[in-house]
């Protein structure tokens, strides 16, 4: 049974949330952790404590590593609530959560929001067709059920995860039909300048190289620098096509590949709906091309009682996220009077050092995998909001009629009013407006988050 209040309430049991809980609990803080999955681990270590040996072989040793953290988390002494859906959070830090179909309100002295990343939407022509999914969805199937898509399979996009998934499929014995890389030509070369900074994290670099080699050796067609990517089909996906790209050194134009499943991916972005609902300050990160939550070195947001850690504040990867979670857990213990300033300093020193080492790969990755503007700001015919079927052209028309911000565009077009509540179109809408009006993103802003943060039935709402 969940209590009315805790000293520390953590939302999200991924690496950042679990680490924050372990740290704070070890100093005697009364902690509760809410998570919407069936077991702890977050997206990255999804299902890790139940995975079979054969699945672990496919997913690799970085996945298995999560097991250690999950085991520590389970023994940390905090209260953990699985399948708990946070549906309400306001600027007064009141948390509404659904557990077993019943709603509870919980308050806390300190809040840690560790809601992780979501995939960056990739609005291409035809992305609303059945058969088009995200690479993340493909990976969830693999992690939670050991399932792989049937029929002809094409992977397309940019970013480390698509390469990882390709590698994991090969380990699972799945032969896919093509890997389409939309990373702009020259991005790799430009990022070489950041390579030196990345040397402390050489393990990340080697891992990437190993995966690329494996795809090559499997003889799977790889296309680079692909432009004009689209999905084609009547009722469902039938083919993937693109205007131009390169296969090795050979130029390819007007290419069409038959496909039953297309897995799209162009990196991950912070899932910042909760921080936004809590009124935490955000800013636009031009390098990562996404909103980030403004925090200090302890992960503390513009609201001093709310810490936002891990990929949910800024994309930094699983290991850096866990270290950031620990730092937040320490600082909260200090703020609550459980440890003194000297102990905080002694404990945090080595963690900060390690955190910085893990972050050193980011400038290289960010510059290497900055998504192409062509896939961020689509042409008029492409749908931006799939829930309400609003195209980029309709958004541009609303701007021409005088809508100067994303919330006006939303009110005018219904873009972002569907079941996903803008989580799949918000940044695209803002980018279109920013480009059309020549206004910086921070000035354009983003679609406001409205409660409920996830759907709740009228009956459940009646009982609060």
């Amino acid at each position, binding site marked *: 049974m969940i209590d009315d209040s805790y000293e520390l309430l953590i939302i999200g049991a991924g690496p950042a949330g679990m680490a924050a809980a372990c740290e704070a609990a070890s100093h005697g803080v009364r902690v509760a952790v809410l998570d919407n999955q069936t077991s702890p681990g977050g997206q990255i270590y999804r299902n890790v404590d139940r995975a079979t040996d054969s699945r672990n072989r496919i997913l690799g040793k970085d996945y298995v590593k999560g097991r250690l953290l999950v085991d520590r988390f389970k023994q940390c002494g905090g209260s953990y609530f699985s399948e708990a859906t946070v549906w309400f959070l306001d600027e007064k830090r009141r948390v509404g959560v659904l557990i077993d179909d019943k709603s509870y309100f919980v308050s806390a002295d300190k809040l840690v929001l560790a809601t992780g990343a979501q995939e960056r939407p990739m609005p291409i022509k035809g992305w609303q067709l059945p058969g088009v999914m995200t690479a993340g969805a493909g990976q969830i199937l693999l992690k939670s059920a050991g399932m792989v898509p049937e029929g002809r399979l094409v992977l397309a996009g940019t970013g480390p995860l698509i390469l990882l998934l390709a590698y994991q499929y090969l380990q699972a014995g799945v032969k896919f039909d093509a890997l389409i890389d939309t990373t702009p030509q020259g991005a790799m070369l430009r990022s070489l300048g950041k390579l030196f900074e990345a040397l402390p994290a050489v393990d990340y670099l080697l891992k990437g190289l190993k995966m690329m080699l494996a795809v090559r050796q499997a003889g799977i067609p790889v296309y680079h620098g692909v432009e004009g990517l689209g999905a084609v089909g009547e009722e469902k996906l039938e083919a993937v096509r693109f205007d131009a790209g390169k296969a090795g050194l050979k130029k390819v134009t007007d290419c069409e590949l038959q496909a039953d499943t297309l897995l799209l991916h162009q990196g991950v972005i912070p899932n910042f709906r909760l921080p936004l609902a809590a009124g935490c300050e955000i800013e636009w990160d031009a390098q990562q091309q996404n909103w980030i939550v403004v925090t200090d070195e302890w992960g503390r947001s513009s609201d001093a009682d709310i810490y936002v850690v891990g990929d949910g504040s800024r994309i930094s990867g699983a290991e850096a996220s866990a270290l950031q979670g620990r730092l937040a857990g320490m600082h909260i213990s200090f703020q609550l009077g459980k440890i003194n300033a000297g102990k905080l300093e002694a404990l945090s020193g080595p963690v900060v050092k390690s955190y910085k080492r893990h972050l050193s790969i980011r400038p290289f990755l960010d510059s290497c995998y900055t998504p192409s503007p062509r896939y961020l700001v689509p042409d008029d015919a492409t749908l931006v909001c799939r829930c309400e079927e609003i195209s980029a052209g309709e958004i541009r028309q609303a701007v021409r009629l005088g809508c100067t911000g994303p919330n006006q565009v939303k009110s*005018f077009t219904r873009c972002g009013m569907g*079941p996903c509540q803008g989580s799949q179109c918000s940044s695209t809408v803002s980018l279109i407006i920013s480009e059309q009006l020549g206004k910086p993103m921070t000035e354009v802003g983003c679609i406001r988050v*409205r*409660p409920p943060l996830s*759907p709740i039935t009228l009956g459940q709402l009646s009982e*609060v």
Partner: protein
Amino acid sequence: MRSDAIVIGAGIHGCSVALHLARSGIEPVVFERSHPGRHASGVNAGGVRRLGRHFSEVPLSIAAMKQWWNIRDLVDDDCGFESSGQVKVAESEEEFDLLKSRVKKLEMDGYEHEEIITRSELKDRIPAISDHCRGAIVCQGDGHAKPFRTVYAFYAASKRAGARFFRDQAVDSIKRAGQTWKVTTRDFTCEAPVLINCAGAWGNQIAALLDEQVPLEPTALMLMISERLPHFCTPVVGATQRTLSFKQFSNGTVLIGGGLQGYVDMSRQQGHVDIDELAINTRTARDIFPLMEKARIIRCWAGIEGVTPDQIPVISPSSTYSDAYHVFGFSGHGFQLGPITGSIISDLVNHQSTELPIEDFSIERFVLAEHR
């Protein structure tokens, strides 16, 4: 700069006033604190009803309805208006008596737009309605429109007619020099012979600059919307003694509101949802439509609206200065009146009179009370 008139506020009333003035040859400048339709005008439930109006508002509401039925002729856009009818249900025998005596009183005044229907007639119209509902008033020809789109249609039409809009221009000061009004905002100073205050929840602040004190309460009126559901309800449904406004759109989503209040943050000009208050609203909706129990709510919001003590608006010449007018304080039911307030103000400015009875909306009812 100079203009023929200055309108403060670009909500539905400011845009309508600007449109009707511009069409009569008086080309106004409109100063808007934020952007057109930012608050109550753009985010309300979109109800277009004569049903259940305060008796003072009935003549205005009927006149406005005639404009709604031909809204495309007025603003060259249908504003998403659908003439779905509106229904007010009685949940008990006492409530049904209240409704019946209301309709009787309207009939005595010569109005026939509201009709009593029995329980079985109600069930025929809306089979999903709960059996405890005893009967209802129905108002054919009422309906609903899309609020933000409507404000933009009025805004765009008045621009085409010659009105000039300036956004992000909260009014800093208002001065009177001879026959001229001088209004200063962040970036502009404008002079004009006529001034119209359409500042919504901020209407009393503008009135105060004209030395008129109106006890206006800013409130955050809450709404919620469901996922798409199979069609089960055509008219807009309200309750009698509980607050409810319930409508299903053609896309299947259900909008539930009725005037329950959230929190107002006037410093940031934001309305916030009060979830406990909202739960009251969901219970009413569930009682009247039991099938809503399992429907998923996907979004709730609150819009800032100014409410007067007697819950009817100020539509009035200024009591302190000539050539100044007030149009604000609609207390949560001003959207439908939007088209007609523009006509009224245009008549007052051009002819110093209007055919519609507006005495009950005079600002003097508050200003005089202050003096007492």
